[in-house]
């Protein structure tokens, strides 16, 4: 049994209230709401052009009265940003406008994680389906000179963890004694939608130390093929020609 005195309980209550004010950052919250209006606070959280780029989306929606739900392609993997400009009244209409966020240029370097020594993985591969048609090449940068033969193995894993071998490639373009390029030309049509991850394994390379790899793909969208309506840094509003 916990015995407590009434006065102690009062002190506990006061401490709790003080703690509540402290951990909720009450005073800085008030100050921020007071000094910045809703739009400014939104921009502070999501950024203007970078990552989710909500500031840019709000800006172009207002400036160009975008009420037809343009397609948004964000080259950085973030949560969906369609919510910023969605107009439910025209939700399924085809818009001629396209918004590109964090556009990297005509060549995209695909992000990857290192699974183990000389094995790499591109996770959530579906992210690239609206950005590229195929993976063009993989460039290997070794730390030391390469004196042995090795080959590349590409496979996919499904959500159940089942692995499927797609390609083995042994012919590479030797740029220098340390840099090799493989033209893999892997069409995305060869990868099923349920195959979520792509694994790149460099076989027969136990003695080799790899500094980095670059996985390159040609961007589906070439800005020059469209009419440029607006641009801010790497964020674009483009329109398909009639």
């Amino acid at each position, binding site marked *: 049994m916990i015995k*407590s005195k009434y006065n102690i309980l009062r002190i506990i*209550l006061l401490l*709790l209230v003080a703690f509540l004010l402290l951990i909720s950052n*009450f005073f800085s*919250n008030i100050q921020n709401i007071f000094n910045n209006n809703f739009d400014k606070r939104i921009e502070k959280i999501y950024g203007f052009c970078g990552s989710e780029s909500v500031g840019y989306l709000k800006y172009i929606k207002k400036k160009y009265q975008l009420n037809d739900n343009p397609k948004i392609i964000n080259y950085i993997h973030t949560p969906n940003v369609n*919510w910023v400009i969605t107009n439910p009244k025209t939700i399924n209409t085809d818009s001629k406008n396209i918004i590109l966020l964090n556009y990297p240029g005509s060549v995209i370097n695909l992000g990857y994680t290192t699974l183990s020594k000389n094995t790499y993985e591109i996770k959530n591969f579906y992210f690239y389906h609206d950005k590229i048609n195929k993976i063009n090449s993989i460039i290997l940068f070794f730390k030391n000179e390469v004196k042995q033969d090795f080959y590349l193995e590409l496979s996919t894993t499904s*959500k159940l*963890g089942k692995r499927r071998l797609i390609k083995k490639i042994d012919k590479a373009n030797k740029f220098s004694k340390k840099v090799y390029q493989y033209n893999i030309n892997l069409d995305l049509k060869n990868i099923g939608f349920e195959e979520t991850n792509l694994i790149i394994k460099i076989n027969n390379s136990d003695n080799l130390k790899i500094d980095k790899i670059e996985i390159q793909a040609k961007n589906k969208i070439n800005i020059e093929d469209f009419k440029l309506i607006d641009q801010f840094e790497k964020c674009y509003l483009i329109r398909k020609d009639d």
Partner: protein
Amino acid sequence: MIEISKILLIFPIFLIFIFVPFPIFDKMNNKLNIELLNFNLIINCNILLVLSLINFKIKDYQLFLFILYVSIFTYYLLKSKKKILIISNDLIIVFFSFFIFGCVIANNLDLGWDAKYFYYIKSLFFYEGLYISDLSQFEHNKWHPHLGSYFWAFFWSIPFFDIEYFGRLFYLFIFCFAIYFITFNSGKTLLINRILFFSLLLITFNYERFSGLQEIILFSFLMISSKILYDLKITNKIFSISAILLITNLLLWVKSEGIVYGFFITTILIINRNINFKEKLLILLIFIFLVSFKSFVFNYYSIELTAQPYNLAFIEQIDFNQFIHRLKNLVIYGGYYSLKNILFLVSLIIIIKLKFSKNKKINTNNFLVYFILNVSFIFFAYILRDMEIIYSLKTTLERIIFTSSAFYIYLIILYINYKIKIN
């Protein structure tokens, strides 16, 4: 300054939703009747649900509803001759905590992943004067029902307020009220009730819960239902049964897994000793009716009912190795998130302690049944889910454990009150 005043001013508007339609002043003493405040909230949420199902634009009836509710409340106030001070005395701590956390929401504004995909866009449909029938046009509509988004849109579209997060402040209001409801009169003194109220707020509040995600609504109503079910007696059973069934109805329309929580609380209601066989049968029939009615509405508005990631073809693919792989990860992540959730952990210890002690002052039956049902649900939901297991666990299990832990909070309150003695 205007926005801060708006946060203060929206509170009385939310209060209206617990003040009517039933009179809230206790005739016996000079206090508010907490059970009726709670019942009003449940009734009003159900009224909003009904209004969301028929093709009425929010703007078409919103003003009328407010005028009607304010008139009814004014009538009650004049009739009972109570002073408005009684209300402020009783609900001041709810107002105080609402304002503090309201400022957190107004300051953060970041929406959760699912909110960006589904809930915000759905609320935009209602905000723009569209109807539930139009939701079938939205490709991500199928994942979850619409009620939380409808609440969001309803309060967002109040003319003077008209900023997105004022809709989400209603979630905060329900949450603060639910904690007030379960702590009110729970302790030996008002001081202990208030200590419990603030302690629970401190433990459970987290901005992400209010980032447009719907779990907090389930959480709040599960807390409320836990107290109603525990306090169910022969004298108040009709009132309690009605409240639980109305909460079940709300759970069904907030999130897909609401059906599971609705099933849990209905089961606990059915096995209650104070309820006779005829009533049990009637409760079961009403539950079946509520679930069928939801299916009927979904079909009527061409909304996909079975969009959740479960299918027979996938289940048939699960071999022994895959089962062990899933089970192993479920135990690891489940253990981790359970240890992280202080409410879940503490209540589990209390259940075990009370079951093996001679203490019969606290009845743990409801909590034990809920625990068994809840663990079974988590087990089957993840083993059979057509999704990569680790991704699935990482992205959803923490929220599932948080939501389901709501039911145990009342047990913790009962236990603390049992242990505390005041000199």
